């Protein structure tokens, strides 16, 4: 009896990796999925913090893909290891703070390690030549294969016919004829293949699956590094960058103001880690103060918080301030008028 060939597939939750996985499963290969969590992954749940997005499905797309295909999915926390990829990318950043090529190399390398530890035979990705400007180009495909150490055990089923034959093809584990020759940014071939496989309701995020490709998010990350004087971060930092208005009146502190109830509930979880405040005399948002704020700074922060409450037009409002020990005090402040908050404060 011949050995069952096994492949591990990088599942992002999008259509391409789903199709690539299905294409190999169709050839009788046993496939299991692997999904990496960097801390910067765009997920329905992150958006779902905000009330306005409550109608969006809250599913995790990688789990949905795995369940739809009927394969196991291994979700790997790479938050700590990923810091070096983001802070010191050998191949640099894309249009924003996205180190896409280093990221892909890193993930394929982790998949190779997983493949070796679990006695699997090759790796699948949903890459398509020309699909992404930084990581999915004809000239970067061999870089990823070489630097990850996956070499010719890395199969890209959607564009395999445009690339040299890999080990699984040469060994006859899979047929090259049943792979594809997709190139470019168009989505029609993928949609046609999805239709052929009977796949519906798949995810096609317009901005990719990573917050680091987002201009606004990247600006907040750079601001964080500049304010701290070091390119380092913790998970809480990157989570908080996804939530609220970030307003930095001075380099030593910023104020994170909840935009609505969902964000306020999320920020509640950080009350023990940050000085926080909300308007006591009027309805208003919860805000966290990040940094080393003086008494004078807290007064400014309170004026900002008051600006976003129902007392914004009052002569004076009372703001409740809680320090890190949970001690409460109050500040009487005049809310900032709109034109008293310079544009540069808004990160």
């Amino acid at each position, binding site marked *: 009896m011949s050995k069952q060939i096994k492949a591990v597939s990088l599942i992002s939750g999008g259509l391409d990796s789903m199709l690539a996985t299905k294409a190999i499963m169709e050839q009788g290969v046993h496939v299991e999925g692997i*999904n990496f*969590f960097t801390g910067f*992954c765009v*997920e*329905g*749940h*992150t958006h*779902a*913090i905000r009330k306005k997005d409550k109608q969006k499905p*809250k*599913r*995790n797309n*990688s*789990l*949905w893909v*795995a*369940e739809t295909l009927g*394969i*196991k*999915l*291994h*979700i*790997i*926390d790479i938050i700590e290891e990923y810091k070096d990829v983001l802070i010191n990318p050998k191949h640099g950043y894309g249009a924003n703070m996205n180190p896409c090529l280093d990221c892909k190399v890193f993930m394929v390398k982790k998949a190779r390690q997983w493949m070796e530890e679990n006695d699997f035979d090759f790796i699948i990705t949903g890459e398509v030549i020309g699909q992404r400007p930084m990581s999915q180009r004809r000239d970067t495909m061999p870089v990823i294969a070489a630097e990850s150490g996956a070499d010719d055990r890395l199969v890209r089923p959607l564009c395999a016919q445009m690339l040299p034959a890999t080990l699984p093809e040469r060994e006859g584990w899979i047929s090259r004829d049943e792979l594809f020759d997709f190139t470019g940014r168009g989505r029609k071939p993928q949609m046609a293949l999805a239709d052929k496989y009977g796949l519906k309701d798949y995810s096609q995020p317009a901005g990719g699956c990573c917050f680091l490709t987002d201009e606004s998010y990247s600006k907040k990350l750079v601001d964080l590094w500049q304010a701290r004087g070091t390119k380092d971060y913790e998970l809480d930092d990157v*989570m908080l960058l996804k939530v609220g208005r970030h307003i930095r009146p001075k380099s030593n502190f910023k104020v994170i103001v909840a935009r609505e109830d969902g964000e306020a*509930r999320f920020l509640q*979880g*950080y009350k023990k880690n940050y000085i926080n405040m909300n308007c006591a005399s009027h309805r208003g948002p919860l805000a966290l103060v990040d940094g080393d704020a003086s008494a004078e700074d807290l007064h400014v922060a309170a004026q900002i918080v008051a600006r976003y409450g129902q007392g914004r037009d009052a002569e004076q409002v009372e703001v409740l301030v809680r320090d890190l020990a949970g001690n409460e005090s109050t500040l009487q402040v005049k809310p900032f008028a709109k034109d008293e908050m310079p544009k540069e404060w808004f990160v």
Partner: protein
Amino acid sequence: MSQYDLDARRLLCPLPVIRTQDKIKQLQQGDVLRVTCTDPGVLQDIPAWCRINGHKVLETKSAEYEYIIILEVGE
């Protein structure tokens, strides 16, 4: 059979799933795990992860912005 608790509050997707996955690796078949979360998405994700990996969801509860999933470890 033993009972265990996992606090996954304040964590956003997919961390509650990852913490559940890591905890279950330490448990035996038939053990019961109670996972407490604040991300409502876990009501979909942890059951989906359980279905994929052969574990059984015994009960899900929602109360005051907390979501509790009780599951039995499979093979």
